[in-house]
């Protein structure tokens, strides 16, 4: 339900510290949700506000205000903003997880340095969601990242998620890794099926 408009970046204000940053940061904890929403919207040009936005995101329960906080982090778009969004991948709330993915997908360059750690996360659900973050990266970046994951990943659902992204953005360089994955999980009919389709799609995209 919460939507982050990707064109928000285009209309973002110049990245200068806002004049009343301290007041806006304090307003992130205001009992009035409208004040919290307005404060979050106003802090999207202030990289210094990332710690406050991260704390507010962890505490916020209203989807509209969470969306405004995530949009502010997306506008800031640096490594700190990525680090502030990543805990939401572990949220029990599926809508919050989806919003975090959408925001992180919109900042692929800032997210890239976090991918190795995300693909090594102990939680397979986090690794599954992390594969989605590669979807908006260039094929030359996405393909080796996902092939490395496929080579070592023990969980079939993580492999399936990686294969789904490879089918869309992967290059033919992924085909050997896909074939090896299908062999490694030969007893999982679903994986055999999706590998075959992914190889067809990648091969077809080449012609």
């Amino acid at each position, binding site marked *: 339900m919460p939507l982050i408009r990707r064109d928000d970046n285009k209309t973002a204000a110049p990245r200068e510290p806002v004049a009343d940053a301290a007041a806006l940061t304090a307003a992130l904890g205001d009992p009035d949700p409208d004040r919290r929403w307005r404060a979050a919207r106003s802090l999207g040009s202030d990289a210094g506000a990332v710690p406050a936005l991260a704390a507010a995101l962890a505490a916020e329960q209203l989807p509209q205000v969470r969306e405004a906080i995530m949009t502010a982090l997306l506008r800031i778009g640096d490594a700190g903003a990525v680090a502030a969004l990543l805990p939401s991948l572990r949220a029990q709330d*599926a809508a919050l997880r989806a919003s975090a993915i959408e925001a992180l997908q919109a900042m692929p360059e800032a997210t890239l340095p976090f991918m190795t750690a995300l693909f090594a996360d102990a939680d397979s659900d986090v690794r599954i969601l992390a594969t989605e973050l590669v979807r908006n990266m260039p094929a030359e970046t996405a393909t080796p990242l996902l092939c490395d994951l496929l080579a070592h990943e023990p969980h079939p*659902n993580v492999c*399936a998620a990686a294969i*789904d992204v490879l089918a869309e953005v992967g290059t033919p360089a992924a085909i050997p890794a896909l074939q090896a994955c299908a062999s490694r999980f030969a007893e*999982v009919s679903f994986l055999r099926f999706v590998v075959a389709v992914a190889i067809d799609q990648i091969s077809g995209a080449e012609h």
Partner: protein
Amino acid sequence: MTSNSEAGAAAAPRRILVVDDSSLVRLYYRAALEKAGFAVDQAINGIEAMEKCLVERFDLVIVDVNMPRMDGLSFLRALRGSAPEIASLPALMISTEAGQQDRDDARAAGANFYLVKPVSEADLLSHVALLAGAP
């Protein structure tokens, strides 16, 4: 349980709506279900699924949890709060999330059954048969 094919079109196959953001997962379910004789339509998120449910009749919806724009739990809550003719549509939720809280959340949202991926063709068809009957 909704049963649209009882009223008239005795030969019409049962219709199943598959809701998943993964095109590969949709293809897998579609191949298995059509081979078994079901008619299959698909949606890529909860919003598209809701739009289809409001204008078309289905005998079962198979829905993922993690999807962009509207997740599967939000979709089921919206479906169960809809007009009576679609609110009782049987729902099979299939997700990678394997925790007890995930199962409880699915039941609370209105899922009739909850399966954890990867699902074999036999498991899929047996649960579909329980909820939608024979094709």
